[in-house]
């Protein structure tokens, strides 16, 4: 067996050996097959001890549930084992490098978890008297201050619950501002072809029409194309910066000027804000509204798909339209809700959701910010960008770069041109990365690049970690070029599951467990 320079075996072990010795259970040592709770839990079992209810006259008014629900229960040891086993079938940032471009998977500090669980934050109710939650309101106010400073914007809406919800908030503020100045008939929103799918979906959701702006050969949007698309019917542009190709839009100031000259607003998708924190401020670049994915930029854990948090910073032009509720700080911290006292000129456009936003995420993000400080956040951006460029430079001779070998921001974008005629696709390549112990990069996005592979290492990775990752990708790339198709086509070999049939899942959707028919019935 050959070893690579890290002292690890460089070739996969003999897969035949394992499959020649099937186990009775289907388990493979620590890799344990786990049934659904519905297949081993019992409705009469409970892992929670509860007191006997008092004897009372029911006030359920004839609406008491009569039928069985069918919910299984687990004892505490059964539940512990079930969920621990499930967790072992998951990849997380604590497991290894998670280079999911545009999703930004960086270290999740446990201090932040500890802080969010302080009873003064985790165990306070959104509607208890304001006098009893002064500290919680101060957290919101302090976080708002950080966000405004880091973005150079005068106002922030804290309540949106995720990035896409923040987009909706920003676009609603723009719509409200247009209506307030009597130009509600501006119906068009410019969206670059390379934009996140949430941008056109958000614009359409509140009645805007989407007009596409081309992506150019250098991966950026040109001010000339923006000018060509502008007209008196244009309400706004939705532009991501740094963009989804991992490039900072160098004509950004000219673009924002053109937009404003045309009487429209500049919405910036802030999904990639983590690349420029402490380096550049959207407010200085002419942005009117930008959501901030707290989970991406300020590292609140994303727990298998959520929660996120999407506060929106707003320029002077839009500051009046911050939705309910918001915190004000005079002698004490107060919460302005519907019907509350508004300062002169404030015109909240409504409410985005019940209560005050993702407070748990606010505490985590603030803990991150305090830990890093202004100096550390700047360093984090620089390291994230340096790490991405190091990967780009180290793979440029083997993998193809759609926009040439120019510096990137926090993520390096490759395409599949280099895989031409190898019989290996981007998807195959990604699945082979799984066997090597890595979460694959983002694939097939941005859509403007064929077979895109978007790699974002973040600042969390050490040089040693990057070197092993680069060595692994080089080994895979050379293997693909040598025509070792089996290593890719049938990958992954070593994951808890081999490749899953997604077409079957979509054609014949099975979205819940259903009790199997009794044997006799099934046999008919």
């Amino acid at each position, binding site marked *: 067996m050959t070893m690579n320079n890290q002292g690890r075996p460089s070739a996969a072990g003999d897969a035949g050996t394992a499959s020649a010795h099937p186990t009775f259970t289907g388990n493979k040592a620590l890799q344990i097959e786990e049934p659904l709770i519905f297949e081993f839990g019992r409705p009469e079992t409970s892992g929670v001890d509860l007191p006997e209810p008092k004897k009372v006259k029911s*006030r359920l008014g004839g609406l008491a549930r009569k039928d069985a629900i069918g919910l299984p229960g687990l004892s505490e040891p059964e539940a512990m084992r079930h969920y621990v086993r499930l967790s072992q079938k998951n990849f997380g940032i*604590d497991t290894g490098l998670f280079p999911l471009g545009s999703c930004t998977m960086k270290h999740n500090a446990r201090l932040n978890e500890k802080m969010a669980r302080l009873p*003064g*934050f985790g165990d306070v109710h959104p509607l208890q008297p304001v006098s009893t939650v002064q500290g919680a309101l101060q957290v919101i106010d302090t976080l708002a201050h950080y966000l405004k400073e880091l973005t150079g914007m005068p106002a922030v809406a804290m309540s949106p619950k995720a990035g896409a919800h923040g987009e909706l908030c920003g676009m609603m503020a723009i719509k409200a501002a247009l209506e307030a100045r009597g130009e509600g008939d501006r119906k068009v929103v410019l969206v670059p072809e390379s934009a996140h799918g949430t941008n056109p979906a958000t614009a359409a959701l509140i009645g805007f029409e989407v007009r596409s702006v081309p992506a150019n050969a250098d991966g950026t949007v040109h001010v000339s194309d923006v000018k060509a698309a502008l007209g008196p019917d244009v309400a706004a542009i939705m532009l991501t910066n740094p963009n989804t190709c991992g490039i900072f839009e160098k004509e950004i100031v000219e673009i924002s000027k053109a937009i404003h000259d045309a009487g429209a607003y500049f919405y910036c998708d802030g999904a990639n804000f983590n690349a420029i924190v402490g380096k*550049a401020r959207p407010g200085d670049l002419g942005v009117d509204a930008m959501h901030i994915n707290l989970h991406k930029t300020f590292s609140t854990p*994303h727990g298998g798909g959520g929660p996120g948090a999407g506060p929106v910073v707003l320029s002077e032009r839009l500051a009046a339209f911050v939705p309910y509720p918001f915190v004000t700080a005079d002698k004490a911290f107060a919460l302005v809700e519907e*019907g509350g006292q508004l300062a002169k000129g404030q015109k909240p456009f409504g409410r*985005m959701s019940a209560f005050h936003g993702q407070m748990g995420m606010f505490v985590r993000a603030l803990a991150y910010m305090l830990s890093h400080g202004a100096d550390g956040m700047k360093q984090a951006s620089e390291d994230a960008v340096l790490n991405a460029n190091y990967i780009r430079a180290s793979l440029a001779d083997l993998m193809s770069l759609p926009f040439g070998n120019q510096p990137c921001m926090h993520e390096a974008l490759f395409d599949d041109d280099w895989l031409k005629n190898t019989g290996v696709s981007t998807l195959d390549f990604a699945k082979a990365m799984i066997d090597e112990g890595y979460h694959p990069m983002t694939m097939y996005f941005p859509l403007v690049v064929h077979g895109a592979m978007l790699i974002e290492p973040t600042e969390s990775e050490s040089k040693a970690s990057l070197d092993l990752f680069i060595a692994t990708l080089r080994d895979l790339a050379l293997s693909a070029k040598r025509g070792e198709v089996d290593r890719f086509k049938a990958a992954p070999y070593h994951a808890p599951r081999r490749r899953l049939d997604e077409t079957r899942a979509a054609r014949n959707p099975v979205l819940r467990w259903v009790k199997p028919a009794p044997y006799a019935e099934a046999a008919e």
Partner: protein
Amino acid sequence: MRYLPLTPEDRTDMLAKVGVASVDDLFANVPKAKLVKGLANLPKAKGELEVERILGAFAAENISASEVPFFVGGGAYKHHVPASVDHLIQRSEFLTSYTPYQPEIAQGTLQYLFEFQTQVAMLTGMEVANASMYDGSTGTAEAVLMAHRVTKRSKAILAGNLHPHYRDTVETLSRMAGDTLVSLAPNPGDAGADLKAVAAAIDSETSCVVIQTPDVFGNLHDLTTIAKKAQDAGALLIAVVTEIVSLGALTAPGAMGADIVVAEGQSLGVGLQFGGPYVGLFAAKQKYVRQMPGRLCGETVDAEGRRGFVLTLSTREQHIRREKATSNICTNSGLMCLAFTIHMSLLGESGLRKLAAVNHANACDLTDRLADVAGVTVLNKTFFNEFAIAVEGDGAKVVEKMAKKGVLAGVPASRLWPKDKALKGVILVANTEVNTDDDRAAFVAALESSL
């Protein structure tokens, strides 16, 4: 900088590999004049101990629910969460994972989502459920949009006793989208009148009616008649549940004919967290599955024929359909789903029913005690664990006085309907399994001395 692994030497070596002289060369696309000079108004990095002190001081300024007799509800509820729930959701592989885009190494997330979807469908009495929404209120707004898609109509009718925050969330989106909305007036005392008003408002333009049960004042509703009335007019019934524990005691909305059920799942596993993150539950009839917003997890097989799970029906979603997507949502409340599903699994059917029974009995006990308090009227004929009382004068002042006496007594209606003078003396009072006999005695004593 304890979170940053690169050393100065690493940075020098890496810059050389990249072929640039300094890191600022990598930011060359940023106009020079726009580079940040410094952030004078923000502090420098702090050690772990310092951060704990700063945030600990903020936290100490709040009164937490476990410290005092606690009766605040109104869409978020204080329940006891078993210790194992929080331990399990902090497992690294759950906590630090992302959306399961690579199903072969995300079976943990996908299987719990599949189990969650099944539990939600069972609990609500519906055929299918999605992998969650941000929360109950945004789920309700999405349900209205879904009803518009299904019926190809654009007028929604909101019952007066829908939580005002939910109403406002729906109203904001509807107004922006240019849809029509009929919002009825609240009616705490005569709950039946609210449904009558909804029924009277239904016409041939109506896409859906939105009714909460238990409603925001705690009243329970039999939705059977209104469901039929709506459906006969070609509209959908959207049932909203803000206290999911109630479904351990009450007939499921699905069994009463609901087309879509939206609920807040915060009560199970999630905790109060000053309003978020919470978890929106969203269930519907099978025939509407392709019009549902949000993520869906589905069962399939792998290349060796073994059962496995994947995200599915994504052709409805924004990353494929862009401006034609069912919704702009590109996430769910993954970790909160996990907390919910673990707590639900620990309870099981027998545990949930008992939990619901304890909640109901405790609330009944408090209304019985209040029957003897002069100047206080319980407004409800029916309720689960929350009910409304009317006092003379300003309910908010009474709640504030009770807070000073160490009892967090409930939600003054003026907090939710600031302009509705008729509700000035109304207070919503919730009672769960965490409330003891002593708590209820303290409530009554504090109330009597605050009137």
